[in-house]
């Protein structure tokens, strides 16, 4: 009797697992007039979108969700939050579309066959390198860095400094580039590698002579007693955040259509944010609160404005602008390659990863191209 009951339970559980794994099929709303409409009209789609909660890159998704724009467009969004870009890419099989910084783009395209689709916006404005006031770097003053004389310190004062930073991300690149302007490398400083929130918390608790932080924490009141040694604009990082698609998802016609709808709404949200900065501030405060960070109105205002978003037209132009170095890639790829070469030189990435980054299938401009043509 016990064996029969066990067998029944196993069969029931097996059927439950199968039914849980069955993907939902999008529903279609029939047109009462019978007139012919475009395939995406009245169709409902779903899309899993990954990014970093509280980030400026995922902020337009939050705004669009709050305003109900995705629902209006027939798109059911599931937003997945991760701690940084590389970790987002590691989980590529759990999402279909992502917004990510250079760390995520590099690991995504090199190791996970991610597809670069377009650009979200600039990624310089919130990357900061703070030092303590009583350090030799702060006392050395400005004017000795070849990249920008506004960067604080000199070669001698930076040697041996303890810095809190995140490995393989835009903050790592900020540190490398700042040091390179003094003729120094990463081996000239002592780096405590950790995730950004821990870097921030431990610096505030007295650990480390310097720290790299990004996002709204760069502008918080708790940084007022520290010296800005360098930041994205000073170090001329020239980076953007980008859209990266899951390679299997972008090949599926239904999901690809969902991505188009998503991008359409995303650009609508970024256009709204750009046109209504004061209203966007309130949304930004709520978005930061959601991510566990309470910010003032002033900090939110700064955060909203510091990294402009790319419009659809900006995206189209950037994706079709030839590389300045004459390489067989576009300007966006060229800028990311510049970062990758820095990382290859320091041993973080391997020789040959630049070829993997540019391999066929890693770039798909068709979504942006189609949207751009439709918008004309």
């Amino acid at each position, binding site marked *: 009797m016990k064996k029969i009951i066990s067998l029944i339970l196993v069969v029931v559980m097996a059927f439950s697992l199968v039914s849980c794994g069955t993907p939902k099929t999008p529903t279609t709303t029939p047109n009462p007039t019978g007139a012919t409409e475009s395939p995406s009209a009245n169709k409902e789609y779903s899309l899993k979108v990954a990014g970093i909660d509280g980030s400026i890159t995922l902020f337009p998704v939050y705004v669009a969700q709050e305003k109900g724009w995705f629902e209006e467009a027939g798109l059911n969004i599931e937003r997945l939050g991760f701690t*940084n870009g*590389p*970790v987002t*890419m*590691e989980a*590529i*099989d759990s999402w279909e579309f992502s917004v990510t910084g250079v*760390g995520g783009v*590099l*690991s*995504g395209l*090199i*190791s*996970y066959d991610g597809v670069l689709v377009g650009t979200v916006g600039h990624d310089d404005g919130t990357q900061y390198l703070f030092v303590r006031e009583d350090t030799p770097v702060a006392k050395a003053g400005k004017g000795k860095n070849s990249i920008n004389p506004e960067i604080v310190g000199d070669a001698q004062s930076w040697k041996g400094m303890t810095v*809190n930073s*995140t*490995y*393989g*991300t835009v903050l790592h690149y900020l540190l490398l580039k700042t040091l390179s302007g003094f003729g120094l490398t*990463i*081996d000239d400083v*002592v*780096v*405590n*590698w*950790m*995730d950004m929130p*821990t*870097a921030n*918390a*431990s610096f505030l*608790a*007295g*650990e*480390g002579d310097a720290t790299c932080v990004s996002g709204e924490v760069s502008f918080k009141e708790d940084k007022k007693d520290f010296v800005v040694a360098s930041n994205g604009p000073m170090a001329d990082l020239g980076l953007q955040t980008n859209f990266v698609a899951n390679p299997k998802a972008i090949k599926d016609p239904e999901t690809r259509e969902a991505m188009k709808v998503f991008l359409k709404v995303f650009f609508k949200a970024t256009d709204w944010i750009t046109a209504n900065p004061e209203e966007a501030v309130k949304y930004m405060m709520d978005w930061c609160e959601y991510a566990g960070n309470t910010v003032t109105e002033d900090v939110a205002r700064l955060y909203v404005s510091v990294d402009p978003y790319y419009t659809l037209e900006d995206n189209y132009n950037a994706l079709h602008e030839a590389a300045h170095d004459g390489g067989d890639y576009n300007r966006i790829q060229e800028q990311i390659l510049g970062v990758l070469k820095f*990382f290859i030189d320091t*041993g*973080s*990435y*391997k020789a040959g990863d630049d070829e993997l980054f540019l391999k066929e299938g890693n770039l798909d401009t068709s979504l942006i191209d189609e949207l751009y043509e439709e918008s004309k």
Partner: protein
Amino acid sequence: MSLNEKDLKKGLAEFKENKRKETLKYVFLSFIGIAIFLIVWKLIVDFKLLNVRNLPAPDSVLSTLITKVSSKNPDGNTLGANILASLQVSMSGFLLAVVIGIPLGLFMGWFTPIDKFVSPVFELLRPVPPIAWIPVVVVFVGIDLKAKATIIFLSVFVPCVINSYAGIKLTKRTLINVAKTFGAGNFETFIKVGIPSAMPMVFTGVRNALGGAWSTLVAAEMLAAKAGLGYMLQVGRNVGRADVVVAGMATIGVLGALMALILNLIEKRILKWKLDS
């Protein structure tokens, strides 16, 4: 028929030979088990039998390990430097937990007032996962070796206390009564009867604690690190180097197994009386 010395020696030699053959058989079986595991892993990768994105083959992991012996890429340290750093962190936390946790568990298990005093706080802290302590540790302890060892300590302290507590609680009443009959006081009975009786369970706790120390290592080195196997694993993650990640995991596994073997040898020595009986 009377047994003579020759027969006894022959019998003993036969017994030892059978024991040796049995031991060799089990060692051979263990190697077969590992070999099958590696072959299945290789087949899964080569023939893409499962959807295992970026799972490196065992030969690729071995190649990475060999390269890491002399290469500092991608994390800035050789394998040896990472191993030493991790040993320092894990053993600091482990030994601290053993030195504090075992006596505490023994005292709690034997002396009721100590048990009633410590238990409520211990039961509150016990379910908290080590990783949840990171923000508190950062603020109050910092991010250096002390902090990482604290994370390890918080993870392995619990099995040391619990197993020592349970071990001494299981001391046979008969043995306690015999000690009392011979005039031993409570403390003398604790030292001469309770503690030896608890030692098998104490060693079980230490074995669990050792496993916990290694498994918490990655979380501890997430706190902040410049070197270590957990750090190497995190860097591999951040640059999409699955071979580095798996190499780190394999090294942690091998080191953990070696430590467990050493612990077994120490246990056999200290608990010789138990094993002989």
